[in-house]
């Protein structure tokens, strides 16, 4: 019974925790600009994240080591600094975007400018990471994030899409001069879904929850069912934007606009549900990013770490957490729109994916860590292919977007 409960909780939290500022921003903008023309990218990213989450859970359960530990052990400290540096750059941008997402959600509920609410969001995250246990941080916002299922209700209430919109599924409406923007969104979708912070968070969480070889079933079911169903929120938001915002000539350039897509079928309740969903998903992601990067640094430098430990015993871990939050607050205080920041952070993550995840492939094929549970050829081929696609679209689209002032 306990096992069934753990599996159910794992699935539910994976569904509720799937979305964040990056996935909301990319799904909303993708649907509004290109109809169903980027659904393939969401599906591709979902397959990749299912594979990666299953792998990292399997790795930790069998080896009893975290991902950061393994990189340092197998490749040495100097090499470890490369993925760490890429993580710090990309995730500090992402954390600023998540805090901005929380601030915008509060702004949509209260009417107060998000600029004033940004420090409040940062303070809320600081209080939670300082005082809450791992279970609360992992499960609390994710359970609240289940309101994202209202996106699916919205799609059902709107009824079937028009044939012209359906055709964009295989014939994306990319006009002359828009191809760079289309590629930029592909990179952002892949980067927002396949965030390497998830691997650090998931493997550290598995240690915090004392996973063992017996947890492999829980891991596999959570990864496949949880992440698979989790992507429904992302797809539903894309479809809502395509059906509602695109005919109104909106491009989902701000987070609040995306909520209008849910307000059409559900009325004022829909707008509240969107604001709550945005709050829960961005808060959950902000907590996870803060913890994941702090775990990574503490494990890499050999410090004491753990959310269930006393802050006095893990002083360096908690100090780094505060410094990391401060960096994100400074980025956020520049006033850059959270949606644009989320898109940019997601594309930067896509660019860095080969640096972040290549060591993981080597580790997943090492029997010294995984005994007879190493990767098969399908896992390896799928991961390499999707990483290459993400890197290629990011390296082509980022400079073009910067040159033209888009993005």
């Amino acid at each position, binding site marked *: 019974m306990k096992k069934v409960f753990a599996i159910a909780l794992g699935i539910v939290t994976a569904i509720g925790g799937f979305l964040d500022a990056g996935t909301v921003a990319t799904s909303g903008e993708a649907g509004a600009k290109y109809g169903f023309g980027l659904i393939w990218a969401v599906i591709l990213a979902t397959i990749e994240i299912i594979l990666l989450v299953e792998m990292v859970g399997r790795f930790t359960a069998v080896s009893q080591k975290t991902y950061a530990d393994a990189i340092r052990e197998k490749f040495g400290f100097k090499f470890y600094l490369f993925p760490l540096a890429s993580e710090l750059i990309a995730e500090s941008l992402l954390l600023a975007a998540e805090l901005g997402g929380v601030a915008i959600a509060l702004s949509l*509920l209260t009417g107060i400018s998000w*600029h004033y609410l940004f420090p409040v969001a940062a303070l809320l995250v600081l209080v939670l990471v300082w005082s809450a246990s791992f279970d609360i941080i992992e499960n609390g916002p994710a359970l609240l994030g289940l309101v994202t299922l209202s996106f699916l209700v919205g799609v059902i209430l709107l009824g079937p899409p028009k044939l012209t919109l359906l055709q964009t599924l295989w014939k994306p409406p990319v006009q002359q*001069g828009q191809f760079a923007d289309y590629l930029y969104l592909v990179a952002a979708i892949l980067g927002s879904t396949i965030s390497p912070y998830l691997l650090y968070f998931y493997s550290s969480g598995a240690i915090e929850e004392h996973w063992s070889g017996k947890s492999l079933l829980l891991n596999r079911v959570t990864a496949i069912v949880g992440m698979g169903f989790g992507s429904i929120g992302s797809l539903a938001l894309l479809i809502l934007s395509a059906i509602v915002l695109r005919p109104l*000539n909106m491009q989902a350039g701000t987070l609040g606009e995306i909520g209008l897509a849910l307000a059409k079928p559900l009325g004022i309740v829909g707008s509240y549900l969107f604001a709550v969903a945005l709050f829960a998903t961005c808060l959950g992601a902000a907590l996870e990013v803060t913890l994941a990067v702090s775990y990574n640094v503490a494990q890499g430098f050999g410090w004491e770490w753990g959310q269930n430990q006393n802050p006095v015993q893990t002083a360096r871990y908690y100090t780094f957490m505060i410094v990391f939050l401060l960096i994100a607050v400074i980025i956020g205080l520049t006033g850059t729109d959270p949606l644009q920041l989320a898109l940019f952070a997601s594309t930067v993550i896509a660019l860095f994916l080969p640096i972040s995840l290549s060591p993981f492939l080597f580790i997943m094929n090492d029997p010294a860590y995984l005994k007879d549970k190493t990767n098969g050829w399908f896992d390896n081929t799928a991961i390499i292919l999707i990483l290459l696609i993400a890197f290629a679209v990011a390296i082509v689209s980022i400079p073009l977007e910067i040159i033209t002032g888009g993005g």
Partner: protein
Amino acid sequence: MQSIRKRQVHGLQMNKTGFSLAILLALLMWTLAGCQFTQSPFALAVSSAGAEFAAAATTLSYVHSGKISTQYAQGSFVNYRSQLDGFDRQLPSQQGAPGRASIEQLLALYKVAIRAVDDPCLEASCNWQAQVAALNRASQAFLKAGGS
């Protein structure tokens, strides 16, 4: 001595590889830009301004039809203002901008529409329909100028 020389040769080869990659990337960017893979900065700017005006019009209509709360609209308009702030100063100097007459026409529509964005009529007592009409006019003109 030999190892130093080897390192120098290796360093030189690495530099050459890096240089070749940079050239290749620059050529790729140039080709893609030449192939109309990107819009001009002017087209991009007016398209996104047009889309923001459309969003503002929809927000205003939704708040008066009870689909969203006044707070939701207030929070949204803060973002629209941020997106459109300083647009009139940047527009004439954007690369790919058309003649002066077209720019002035767009700016005239912008001036009326931005007033609605800065001070949206969220109460039933004022003439919100006129604001929605001004926002829609600006949106259509900007999207057309951007080639959408």
